[in-house]
């Protein structure tokens, strides 16, 4: 049996620091919103001429008065991702850019993807993204509240907030782009983290009914160990799937799978070191579950 409970305090401290740092990052550095949420234009361009590179593209685009332009390599040497604000929301901007690029590069490039999101739409997308995440947290809260005693609910929800905040904190720290698929990833993380916590909690409650003489400090540790191989196997297979997406699923899914990978790691960690420690700190005992059983 591994003594997870020996490190409850250490990891609680670490998690608190992580949450505070993440919140500070989110407040002061903020998130790097993609065009889905900020509005603007994105062009994925493939070049067939080595003359076309990041700096020559940047030169060209900067001459076109498009506001802030960012040019990056995208996956390999010939693919580039160009993003700009398109402040004035010009109508035929893509045609203008094509005409302009033709002048310097001829026909040696190809627009593989063009996305243009107006300011109205991006504001709506951001709003519905925030609503979606809040709604999912609220639904989880209701679900867990119906299924478990309040001490458990608090533990699960704290673990959930931890996972979402720290994942977003990492995105802020490395200025990774937040787009629509990241919202999908965050929601899936919420589901996954909850799932992981519930499996351990199920066992804690079962053990609470079984043993009256074991303190919650020990009992959580027993329960974690009993469910440990399941925790490891499921995280492993989920991570296999996600790593496959990250490395082979193409450039577009990179951010999505990275967010999910982080979420699975944090979710597994928080189920053990946040959800359970809340039970310990709230001194949950056999009485807690029996009282609730009687009510039912």
């Amino acid at each position: 049996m591994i003594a997870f409970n020996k490190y409850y305090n250490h990891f609680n401290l670490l998690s608190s620091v992580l949450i505070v740092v993440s919140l500070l990052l989110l407040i002061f550095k903020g998130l790097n919103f993609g065009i889905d949420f900020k509005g603007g234009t994105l062009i994925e361009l493939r070049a067939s001429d080595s003359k076309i590179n990041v700096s020559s593209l940047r030169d060209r685009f900067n001459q076109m008065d498009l506001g802030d332009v960012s040019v990056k390599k995208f996956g390999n040497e010939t693919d580039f991702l160009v993003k700009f604000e398109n402040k004035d929301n010009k109508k035929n901007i893509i045609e203008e850019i094509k005409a302009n690029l033709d002048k310097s590069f001829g026909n040696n490039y190809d627009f593989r993807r063009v996305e243009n999101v107006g300011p109205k739409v991006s504001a709506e997308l951001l709003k519905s993204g925030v609503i979606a995440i809040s709604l999912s947290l609220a639904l989880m809260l209701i679900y867990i509240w119906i299924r478990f005693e309040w001490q458990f609910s608090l533990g699960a929800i704290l673990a959930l907030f931890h996972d979402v905040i720290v994942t977003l904190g990492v995105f802020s720290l490395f200025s990774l782009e937040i787009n629509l698929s990241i919202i999908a990833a965050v929601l899936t993380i919420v589901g996954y983290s909850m799932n992981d916590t519930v499996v351990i909690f199920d066992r804690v409650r079962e053990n609470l009914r079984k043993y009256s003489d074991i303190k919650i400090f020990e009992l959580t540790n027993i329960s974690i160990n009993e469910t440990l191989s399941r925790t490891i196997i499921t995280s492993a297979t989920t991570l296999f799937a996600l790593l496959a997406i990250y490395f082979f699923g193409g450039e577009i899914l990179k951010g999505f799978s990275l967010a999910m990978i982080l979420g699975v790691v944090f979710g597994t960690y928080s189920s053990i070191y946040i959800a359970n420690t809340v039970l310990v700190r709230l001194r949950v005992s056999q009485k807690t579950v029996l009282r609730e059983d009687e009510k039912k």
Partner: protein
Amino acid sequence: MLYFSKLRILFITLFSVLFILIASSNLFKFDDNFFDKKINLGLDLQGGSYLLLEIDNEPVIEQKLQNLTTTIRNYFKEKNIKINNIKMENQNIFFNATDNDKQTILDVFQDENSELNPYYPRFKSHQLEIEDTGSNFKVNFTKQGLIKLKTSSQDQAIEIVRRRVDEVGTNEPNILKRGNNRILVELPGLDDPMRIKSLLGKTANLTFRFITNDENDRFGVEKLKFEDGLEEATVSKRIIISGENLLDAQPKMDTQANQTIVSFTLDRVGAKRFGKATSTGIGKQLAIVLDGKIISAPVVRDTIASGSGQISGGFTFQTATDLALLLRSGALPAPLEIIEERTVGPDLGQDSINAGMIALAIGFILVIIFMFVKYKIFGLITNVTLIVNLFILLGVLTLFEATLTLPGIAGIILTVGMAVDANVLIFERIKEELKDENNNILAFDGGYTKSRTAILDANITTLLAAIILFFMGSGPVKGFAVTLGVGIFTTLFSVYFIARLFTSIYVSRNKNKEKLI
């Protein structure tokens, strides 16, 4: 938990085989009458263009209020009720009336059978609301009136958009209403939406009006610019004919003048009016005005009674073709603005499919190897179940003709990773049961029963997330929600029916074996 009746086994087998067949039907081409369901590829996978258009209703509201001003004036004139100073300002109609008439006027507006102010019983609301500000009356649309106006202009606009898109002849376009002032246009397979964008960006409001020098023209005049933006002319507001009078328009080559023209045919009413105007207006210049700009202003040389004519204006063949198309499909009730555009080229779509399939294969192989190494024979059972699960998932998606997107493929891969969770929970529980239970069958029973709540909890939480995503997410992300959500149901089916069937067969045959798992 371990017993399966023959009937049940038959049902499970048939069900699985059926879905495997449905799933594999995507690979073959059947006769449409036999089975024509297929998984649709999203625009991000097959390439294509997604355009979200917003109708700018301001001019429609303005125009409608302008018309209403006239209607109200005429209505009260007919009823011999004196109203003064009727005018439209800031999207409100204002007028004065004497104190004696005030109540009568209010009654006219608030009568449920009012001719002037239609009542919508379903919404318990009139079209217009009237307010006595003390010094005058203020009339404006009610909330419902405004909604009616918007939906009707959306209905008209979507019809015109459909005609224009159809005329260009793209592959199975998808044109849908969004809210009450937006139209979604999905154009699969189109990698350069430039032409469609420019066609949809034009209102195509065509009028034929005389150019006049008489500032006191009975119908009023306005100064309009020519297409080239340089010259200007004073044009009467009297409309001889408009786009509505057009039956047909076609691009043609005028061999005499060696230029491309658009020839048009008028309906009966249009032909009559055109004939009359050209007979009285010989020598005058007739301006052909499109969306507030003069295309050309030829001098009338002869009466045109045939009901057909032509427009020249320095067109290239392409611009003539587009103008003819716009005229044939009719004018939009209001200008459209493209507020969101997402276009994916077909080769990027194919690359995404390839990458998704490779990721799926690799993720699948990793999981299968891992499960086999970890659980041996039970790993094998899990793996077979996983494969069947994947087919059932694809079968369900085919049956509902769901749209598969790139995030949707990610959802399938994720399902593969998470689907083993239920089996793992069961197997681990059986292991624990076997520690103090010698009877294999009882241990298996216990394993299945005691793991059930955890499995249900786990799947419900993921399902909740998927449901929210489905309703809040857009486009590709919705595809993720679909595969993730459907994946949960197929996983539960395969775990509790298929995997359990295999397990029960194996356990019953090895009742007395020690260290079964």
